[in-house]
Each structure stands twice: as C-alpha cells, then as structure tokens.
C-alpha cells in the first residue's frame, strides 16, 4: 500500500529542514576535517616553517629495515610561516620514510617527528625544516633529483599532516 500523501506545505517544511540538517552536518564534517597542521612543535622547531604540497615521490622507498636513510622528495611551497625559502619548489629529505613520523626518531636522528603517518604524492604537509641537510643528518641519502637540481636539500625536522 502506498503511504498517504502529506499536505504540500508540510512537505516543503520537512524538505527545507532536511536540507538545512544535511548542510549543517556537512559543514560540521568539513570543520572537523580541516587541519592546518599547526602545533607547538612545528611552529618552534627548525629555522624554516612551511606548508607545502608533496609534488612527487620519485622512485620507491628502499624496503630494508636493516638500514637507515633519508629520502629526498619534491615539494611546492604554498605558504612560508617562518624563515625564508629560496624557491617555490624545494627538496626535502625525510628520515626513514616508511615509518610514521611519531616513531621515527632514533639515535641517528634524535629530534625529529610529527603526526604524519604516510607519505603520499599530492598531500599537503606543514613542516619545520633545517638546511642544508648535511649539517643536521649524517646518514645515507637517496636523492633521485641529484642530476637536475643544485639547490640545497632541506632536512625535515617536524612533519604534520594538513587537511585542506
């Protein structure tokens, strides 16, 4: 049996209310997912702080738990919060990138961290950086951009996830 039809005016009110509810839920959802990646660590560590998009991960991260390394990744700088960067495109070395930033620090790279769990091209990160990498990190560096850039490599001190 078909349901009894509601009066037209009532149906309009219900529809409007539904739309408002949906929009409200949507906005609340947006608000809860947006995250500028700001925290007391990223805003105080390192000499440079940027929000940048991870443009490319060239090649695969070496998969050998026996050995430590930093992997150089290409970023497009969206905003500079502290310090200066020389270019809109920067190259950043991340330590042992297969590990979540929260657990990556060890004896070779003591004062690093962040809340990023996984590196994915296209994602945006808020990072505290130092440069050049050799002044702050002493270990193997995988640099697939070596032949096409002359810029100094930044060292990722703190890397937080940004949700746009």
């Amino acid at each position: 049996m078909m349901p009894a039809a509601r009066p037209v005016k009532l149906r309009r009110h219900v529809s409007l209310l539904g739309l408002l509810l949906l929009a409200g839920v949507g906005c609340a959802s947006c608000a809860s997912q947006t995250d500028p990646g700001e925290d007391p660590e990223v805003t105080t560590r390192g000499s440079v702080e940027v929000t940048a998009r991870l443009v490319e991960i060239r090649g695969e991260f070496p998969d050998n738990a026996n050995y430590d390394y930093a992997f150089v990744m290409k970023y497009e700088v969206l905003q500079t919060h502290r310090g200066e960067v020389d270019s809109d495109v920067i190259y950043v070395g991340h330590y042992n990138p297969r590990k979540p930033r929260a657990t990556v620090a060890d004896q070779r790279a003591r004062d690093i961290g962040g809340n990023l769990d996984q590196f994915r091209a296209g994602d945006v990160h808020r990072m505290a950086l130092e440069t050049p990498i050799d002044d702050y990190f002493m270990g193997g560096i995988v640099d697939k951009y070596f032949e096409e850039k002359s810029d100094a490599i930044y060292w990722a001190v703190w890397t937080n996830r940004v949700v746009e």
Partner: protein
Amino acid sequence: MPRPVGWIVISVILVMACSAGRAGEPEQDERVGQIMEVVRTKGWIAYSARSDNGTWDLFLSRPDGSRSRNITNTSNYEEAAPRFSRDGKKLLYRQLAGGSTINHDRWGFQGRLVIAGPDGANPAVVDQDGQWSWATWSPDGKQIACLIPRGIQIVELATGRVVRSMDREGIYQQLFWSPDGQWFCGTANHLGTMWTVARMNIATGKLNVVHKFQSCTPDWFPDSKHVIFSSRPPGQTASRGYGWTQLWMADGEGTGSQLVYGEDGCHVYGGVLSPDGKYVLFTKSLRDGGGAERSGGTMCLMRFSDAPTIGGESKELREKHRHTKDGPVLELGQGWEPSWTYEEIGSTQ
C-alpha cells in the same frame, strides 16, 4: 611439526652453517693448523663478544684464538668495537648502557667513547654522550678524528681541543684514518648514491670514490694505498635478489676492485688487515650487518695471499669468480669488529 619449532630448527641449521667452533678449535684442514701455528705469536686481537654475564664485553686473544680473556667484564655496560692505536699502546671503544642493543650501522653514534690501555686497564671516558662519534686513531695515537654532522673534527687527546675541522663531503659513517696520515676513508653519499666507499685527501679535503653501490665498512691496508671493505654486488639471486655481502678490496683511486672473501649463505663484514698486511680478519654471519644486534658473527682469519677465497659450496659466487684460491680459513668463534696489533701486551704475556 608446529611452525615455530620448524622455524627454530631452520634458524639453528642456518646459523650453524655460518658459524663454527669456539676460539681455537680448527676445522679439519691441515692448512688451518699451519696458519694457527704461525699467527699464534703475532701479537693480539681485541674483539667484542657476549660474555657469560650476557652483556657485550671486550676480549683479548692470540690471533689463533688461544688465551682468550675478558678485559672489561662489566655487567652494567655493553662494550664494543675496540681499536688498537697503531703503536698498540692504547685501545679505544664504545661503551653503552647495560641492556642497550648495539646497532651494526649506528654503533659509532652509540654510547660514549672510552680510551684504555691495550689490556683494558685504566679506562677513561673521553667524551660526553656521543660527542665524538665514529672516533678513529691518528697514526701517532695522539689525536682522534670524529664524524659529526657539520664535518670531521680532529681532536688532540691531551687537551681535548678540536685542532682542525673540515667538511665531511658526504661521509656519514665508519671513518678511518690511514696509517700514513694522509687520508680518511669512510662510507659516503656521493652523486646522489648512498653506500659508497670513499677516500678523502686530508690536506685538500677532496673526496674520490673507491667503490660504489652497497658498499661500506672500509678500512686501510698498512700501505695506505689500498682499502678493504664489504660490498653486496648486484645480480645475486639469493634471498629474492638481496644477495650476500662479501669482502672486497680496491686501491685508493677506486681501481682494481677484487674479491677477498665471499661465501654464499653468509654476510661478511669487519674486514681488517694484520699490521703487516699478510692476514685478514673478518666476521661472517647469516644476518646482514654482522650480528651486532645479537651475538656477533664467526670471526675468521685468512692469509691475504689466498685472496680471493670462496667459502662453502657457493655455486653462484664460484660461477662469477672462477679463479679463486680457496685458501684455508681459521674460524675463531663468535665476536664482532676485531682489531689486531703485533705489539706485546704487558699483563697478558
């Protein structure tokens, strides 16, 4: 058979395949007995090994494995990586808090630097919390060179003063100063590639490649012209292409690379020459990295004149190196990062 038991059995078999008797127990090879006889009076080796108290301690033994004794014997510290000064009068090593895991790749950063007499007497902590990482003796034993992120520092031991700083040019671990004082060797990043064995001219600071690709743990021949190192060449099929690490040598210019010792089924590390260059000490272990995280590897000694030598069946390796000498190899028991002096050591004579 339950799976865990099966794995334990397999592991034991594999470990046995890469290990041998205790110090001083030779293989059934007459030539090994001849080596033992000759090296027995050639000074002392120092090495790190697990002691009865479960921690890493330092040991001295004759190069044939006889007269082994614990020279640190501390249950509250882990001691590792001893290195005699060139004159054999002193020993430097790393000391870590008890219970620490020694990392085969980070050990030069770990703990603190201690300098003692060659028999472990009068140990003195000479740095603060890893301040002088990867310390290596100067030829005269009056200085050490250390690797820190901002460069190489040369430290005068009498005063603790840094007398020279220089760029490290990508060298990041395993720094060693040549006997003639003119060079450093180390593991470096070079032209975008890590795990490159490199040599640095100390006067000019210029770096040259000795051997590229998956190479590390270099050390000097007594002539300061050649470098011994570990390398895991590409093209191996074992362990899904991971392969086995072998002991290699090359001259300082990076030419004339050749195999010294290899054995399919073992990773070979810690290569070091006797003071006269006639013998080679190294460790072999099933696990990559030399076994520092557990109990080290099997320390081995061979004549340099027998290089290249291949151990075990090693079908694949023998295919690639058809003209090996298969010289005798004396196995000295479990240990890690041995060092050799021809000097007599007072209280151990």
